[in-house]
């Protein structure tokens, strides 16, 4: 019957299950909406269609999906190497710092060159921040979860310190507002944008990264080694594969991608360094990566889905004027329901 028919079509099965889960989450959410005195049918229209109905919705979805995709890819690489990288948030922030600093330091250079510099800076900045837990785990087996949680806080405070002190916008000081933010980066280093929207070329970069990560993990010897280390370190040592070396490489690539996301947020969206520049992408991306089954081909749609969910939720809050808390609740419900139904999905290796 149906179930057996679906068994032959695992992918369809998975998608159906996920959709049902999301639906269930919305049903429960409807209860909350009524509680908040809003009409679910009115509220859900923007949540569901908002992301796709308008040019605005679509582009904003992609704007949010871009960093989610990059960070999600990074988290997948770390995961495959046996590391749970909770630190993407901090690595992304350091990425934004490094990018802004380099771009402002070399204002003079022509745009394209500046962008290349920014690219390198963002990646390296993130990678360096991630290298700390990576090396500590590889060399003395320190627990990466704990260290990355702490380093997230440190990164946020570091950002605050820099934009209030060393990197603060001269104009702000001159006027005396002293609002903590860096100077604008030169227009030359801004990523191309679709007019009237915030959609920027960073998306293409992220998609390219997805392809490269796929090739790296499944088509290169280094990727193979990282997967072995992540799945069975003992077998890796036995097979002559250095565990420490690959752990460090995996974390650096992972955090580098997070840093890259930071670079794209600066050159594509904000054009300067600000407080709260990351919007919690580092955490959402963990969910995205696991939704995407730690596989680029899964993470791409997952990041779009979550981008859409975030945008739709914002629009729901605006059009219906419900409290912000309700939006978090519904997002939480979606995550919980979808992950709870994994058991009815095909298990991937």
């Amino acid at each position: 019957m149906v179930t057996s028919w679906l068994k032959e079509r695992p992918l369809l099965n998975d998608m159906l299950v996920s959709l049902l889960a999301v639906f269930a989450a919305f049903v429960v959410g409807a209860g909350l909406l009524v509680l908040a005195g809003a009409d679910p049918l009115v509220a859900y229209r923007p949540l569901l269609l908002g992301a796709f109905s308008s040019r605005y919705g679509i582009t904003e979805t992609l704007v949010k999906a871009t960093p989610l995709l990059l960070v999600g890819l990074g988290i997948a690489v770390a995961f495959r190497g046996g590391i749970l990288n909770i630190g993407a948030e901090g690595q992304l922030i350091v990425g934004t710092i490094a990018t802004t600093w380099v771009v402002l330091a070399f204002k003079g250079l022509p745009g394209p060159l500046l962008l290349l510099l920014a690219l390198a800076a963002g990646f390296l900045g993130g990678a360096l921040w991630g290298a700390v837990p990576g090396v500590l785990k590889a060399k003395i087996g320190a627990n990466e979860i704990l260290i990355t949680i702490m380093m997230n806080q440190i990164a946020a405070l570091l950002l605050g310190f820099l934009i209030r002190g060393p990197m603060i916008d001269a104009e702000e000081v001159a006027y005396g507002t002293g609002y903590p933010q860096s100077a604008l980066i030169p227009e030359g280093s801004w990523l191309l944008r679709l007019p009237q929207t915030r959609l920027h070329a960073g998306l293409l970069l992220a998609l390219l990264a997805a392809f490269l990560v796929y090739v790296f993990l499944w088509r290169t010897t280094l990727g193979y080694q990282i997967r072995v280390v992540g799945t069975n370190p003992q077998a890796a040592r036995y097979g002559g594969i250095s565990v420490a070396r690959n752990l460090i490489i995996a974390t650096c690539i992972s955090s580098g991608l997070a840093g890259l996301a930071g670079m794209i947020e600066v050159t594509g969206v904000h054009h300067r360094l600000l407080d709260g520049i990351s919007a919690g992408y580092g955490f959402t991306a963990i969910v995205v990566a696991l939704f995407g089954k730690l596989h680029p081909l899964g993470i791409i749609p997952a990041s779009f889905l979550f981008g859409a969910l975030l945008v739709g939720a914002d629009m729901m809050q605006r059009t219906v004027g419900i409290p912000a808390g309700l939006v978090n609740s519904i997002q939480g419900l979606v995550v919980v329901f979808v992950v709870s139904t994994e058991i009815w999905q095909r298990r991937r290796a």
Partner: protein
Amino acid sequence: GPTPVPTAAPVVVTKEVPVVVTATPAPTKPAKVFKVALILPSTMDDLAWSQSMYQGVKKVKEEMGPAMEFTVSENLYKIVDAGAAIRDYAGKGYDLVIAHGSQYQTVVRDIAREFPKTSFAYGTGFQTGPNIFAYDPQAQQGGYMLGMLAAGMTKSGKVGIVGPVKGGDAIKYNEGFKQGVAAINPKVIVLETYTGSFAEFVKAKEMAATHMDAGADVLTGTAQQSVSITKAAAERKGVYMLCSDMDQSKLAPDTVLASQIYQWDEVVRRMITLNKSGILGGERLVLDFSGGKLQLVYNPKLEGNIPKDLKDKVEKAKQDIISGKLEIKLP
């Protein structure tokens, strides 16, 4: 026993807003309805920065009635989310989009460029644009007067500031406060600390406690977390709290001595008028005592405790500030 719940107004409004919008969906709205959107960094009931502006706009809305439409998005401290909201409102054809925080300056500038027919506003700030208003509360003025009060009222000779982060509104206020203290009694020590966030309520309260352990008997502070300071002060005997942004005496009737409050409704009214007369921006709207957009209110319950001469000095300073005789310099 528990202190009574203050006005439940926000609840009413959050419920009322959808009705308005659903009644008249964005695109097909009658020409004369003036549409205002408000972006708040924290919640509309934070008893501080956000709530003060929210109530300002609400006041105007009540005056204009159906001629005005008003939507609010809260908790958008993160610029990315705020940017999305601002852009969405602009796209929906709102006439005035108020992004209530200095951090929104960049996004506002970006978006304003693409929606030349919409008025945008943000603050604290000074950089305007053809369709950007910047409003600029001179928080240091009230800070100065409250500082004078602090210096006059302290018995221990120590007063404490618990700040959120060192920037924007906060430093202007704190700067004025310190100068006010010095004006009354240079010997009074001002303890100044920052939690590193606008919303570290627990830390803010512990810091306030630390100040009092260190001997401070008059406290002050800004941003939404200032409720923690008020609460902490309320739990000790003989400690006064001086508020900015909003009057928190409802929360601690026996502790909040005086507050500097912002008359946002004036600002909003002004921007609407300008917009209707075709001026979409370019003006820096200053909130200060001379314009009456900043005000000093005493807590009637405690007003009596303030020595006459101190109160006169404060009153004099206020007049000098209004007349321009006294200007509080910022570093």
